[in-house]
C-alpha cells in the first residue's frame, strides 16, 4: 500500500525525542514527593470522613436501639411465670438472710427461676450452685418464695438499673403482691439525646516554639516595625548602586504571631461518657514577611491568613460529676483558607489543611445548663499548604481553649 505524505511526517515525528534540562529528574522527584504528600493528606481526609460517618451511623444506631434495661412489664412477666412453672430444671439457689424481707420465712435456701437476671448481687445475697439440696415442699411456701423473689428482683434491679444515682429501692412487700407500684409506667425506654453547644476562644503556642525564626536585624538602614501594614522598601546608603543591582533573587523571612481563634461547637452525647464534638472554628494567622534582596535592600509586609475549620472529635468523659467534668478527646480537623493577604495583595490557597488533635478538658458547671470549660489541646498538621504561617513552621501546636458550654 502506497504511503501518504502525512504518514512520512507521522513516522518522522513519532521517533523524535526532545532533550530535557539537566535538573529535570530532580524537579520531577520534588513534584512526585509533593504529589504523594497530597495523596496522603487526601487519604487522611477520607479516613477522617469515613470515621465521622461511621461515628454518626453508630450514634444513630445507638439512639434507635431499644434500651438494654428491660421494661417493667417484661421483668414482671419474666419473674412471675404461672405457679406450676416455678420449678424449672435449671435453677439458681440463693441463700436469703432473714432481714431482707419482712415476711416470716425461715432462713433457708429457696428456689427462684434461673431467668432472674442476677447482675450484681449485693453483699448479703449469697449465690451457691447447689441444685441438689433444693426441694419445694408445699404450695404455700411457694407463694412465700415468689413474694420474696419479687423483693430480691427489686433489689437486683436497684443495683443493676440505677447505678448512676445509687438510689436504694425501698419496698414494702405487703402493699402490692406483684410489686407493680414500684415501676412507674412512663419510665422512658430509650436513651435521651443530650446536646451541648459551646462558644470558645483560644490562643496557641508551639511546644518547640521559635517566634522569630530568623534574625531580622537589617543589614543596613532602618527597618519598618512588625505592626506596620504598608509595604516599605528601604534602600542602602548608595541608592544609585543599589538600583543597578538585580532584585530578581531574594530570600524571605517570616515572623509569625500566635494565632487567634474562636468558634462554636456542638457536643452530641452518645452515652453518658462518650460524645462527638464538632463545630466551626475561625483562626487568624498574622505574620511579618521580610524579603531580603540580593542587593541587601529589604521589604516588610504584613500577612494575614484567615482559616475556617471543622473539627470532628470523639470525647471520653473520665470524671462526670454534677459540678465538674474531666474528659479526653481525639479527632481530626479540616481547615480551609477563606481570605489571605500580604502587603494588601490577595494570596490564594486552594489546599484544604488537615490536622490530628488530642484534647484534655475541664468543665465547671456553674448551673446545670451552663458550664465553663478550659481545654488544652495538641494538634499535628498533616499538610502545610502553600502560604507560610505559624502552622507551617511548627507542625505541633498546643492550643488552650476556653469558653462556655450550654447543655440541653
Amino acid at each position: 500500500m502506497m504511503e501518504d505524505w502525512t504518514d512520512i511526517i507521522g513516522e518522522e515525528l513519532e521517533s523524535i525525542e526532545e532533550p530535557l534540562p539537566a535538573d529535570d529528574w530532580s524537579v520531577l522527584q520534588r513534584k512526585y514527593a509533593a504529589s504523594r504528600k497530597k495523596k496522603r493528606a487526601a487519604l487522611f481526609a477520607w479516613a477522617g470522613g469515613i470515621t465521622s460517618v461511621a461515628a454518626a451511623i453508630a450514634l444513630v444506631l445507638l439512639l434507635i436501639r431499644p434500651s438494654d434495661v428491660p421494661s417493667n412489664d417484661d421483668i414482671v412477666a419474666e419473674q412471675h411465670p404461672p405457679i406450676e412453672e416455678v420449678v424449672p430444671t435449671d435453677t439458681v439457689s440463693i441463700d436469703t438472710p432473714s432481714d431482707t424481707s419482712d415476711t416470716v420465712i425461715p432462713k433457708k435456701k429457696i428456689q427462684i427461676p434461673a431467668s432472674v437476671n442476677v447482675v450484681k448481687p449485693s453483699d448479703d445475697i449469697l449465690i451457691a450452685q447447689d441444685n441438689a439440696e433444693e426441694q419445694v415442699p408445699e404450695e404455700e411456701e411457694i407463694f412465700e418464695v415468689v413474694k420474696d423473689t419479687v423483693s430480691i428482683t427489686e433489689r437486683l434491679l436497684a443495683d443493676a438499673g440505677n447505678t448512676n444515682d445509687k438510689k436504694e429501692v425501698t419496698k414494702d412487700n405487703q402493699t402490692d403482691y406483684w410489686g407493680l407500684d414500684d415501676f412507674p409506667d412512663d419510665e422512658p425506654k430509650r436513651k435521651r439525646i443530650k446536646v451541648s453547644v459551646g462558644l470558645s476562644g483560644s490562643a496557641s503556642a508551639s511546644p518547640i516554639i521559635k517566634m522569630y525564626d530568623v534574625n531580622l536585624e537589617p543589614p543596613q538602614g532602618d527597618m519598618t516595625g512588625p505592626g506596620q501594614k504598608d509595604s516599605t522598601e528601604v534602600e542602602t546608603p548608595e541608592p544609585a548602586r543599589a538600583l543597578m543591582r538585580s532584585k530578581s533573587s531574594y530570600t524571605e523571612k517570616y515572623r509569625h504571631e500566635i494565632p487567634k481563634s474562636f468558634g462554636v461547637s456542638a457536643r452530641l452525647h452518645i452515652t453518658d461518657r462518650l460524645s462527638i464534638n464538632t463545630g466551626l472554628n475561625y483562626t487568624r494567622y498574622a505574620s511579618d514577611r521580610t524579603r531580603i534582596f540580593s542587593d541587601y535592600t529589604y521589604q516588610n509586609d504584613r500577612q494575614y491568613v484567615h482559616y475556617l475549620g471543622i473539627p470532628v472529635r470523639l470525647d471520653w468523659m473520665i470524671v462526670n460529676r454534677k459540678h465538674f467534668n474531666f474528659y479526653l478527646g481525639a479527632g481530626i480537623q479540616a481547615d480551609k483558607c477563606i481570605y489571605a493577604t500580604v502587603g494588601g495583595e490577595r494570596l490564594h490557597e486552594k489546599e484544604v489543611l488537615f490536622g490530628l488533635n488530642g484534647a484534655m478538658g475541664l468543665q465547671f458547671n456553674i448551673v446545670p445548663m451552663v458550664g465553663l470549660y478550659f481545654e488544652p489541646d495538641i494538634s499535628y498538621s498533616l499538610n502545610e499548604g502553600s502560604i507560610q504561617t505559624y502552622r507551617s513552621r511548627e507542625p505541633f501546636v498546643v492550643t488552650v481553649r476556653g469558653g462556655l458550654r450550654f447543655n440541653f
Partner: protein
Amino acid sequence: MAEIIKIEDIELAKLCARGDDKARKELYTRYAAYLYALCIRYVGDKELARDLMHDAIIKIFDTVGKYKPTGSLKSWCARVTVNMVIDHLRKSRRMDLVPLEHTQEKIPEPQNEEVAKIPKAELMRMVGELPETKRVIFNLFCVEGYSHKDIAQMLDIKEKTSSSLLFKAREQLAKNVRDYIRKNGL
C-alpha cells in the same frame, strides 16, 4: 544500575510498581525525552509540555502496575501521556471542536520524496504551527495512529467532525510544507 538497564519492559514495570527508585529513574531515562517531545507536539508550548510530561510520568509511576505486556512499555506510556494531554486540553477548553465545511479550493499536496527531505525539527515546527484542535487531531490520527472512531470517543465529538478537522489540518500543513520546499529549493 547496570542490571536495570538490561531488563525488559515488564520487569521494569514491576520494579517501578514496587516503588524501586532505580527502576523509576531508568524508566524516566528511557522515555522522558520521547514523552516530552510528544507533549510539545500536542501543546506547542515547551514549559506547559514539560509540566504535562511530569504529570504524565507521575501518573505512570502510580499506575505502571496495570501495564500488560501486550504492547511495548513505551507505547503504554505514550497512551497515558496522550490521555493526560487531551484531558488537560479539554479542561482548559482550548479546543474548538466544531465541524468545518470542506472548501472547494484544492491545495496541491507535497510528494513523499519532498517531505522525506525536510528535517525533523522543521516538521515539528510546522505541526506546532497548526491551530490547537487541528494539531491535536493530526497528531492523534497521523502520528499515534488512532482511528476517527477512537478520536471521536476521546474528544467526545462526531467522527465526521474529526475527519473534517483532519482534512483542514492536512490542507494547512500541505501549504506550509510546499512553502518550505519552495523557499529551500528542495
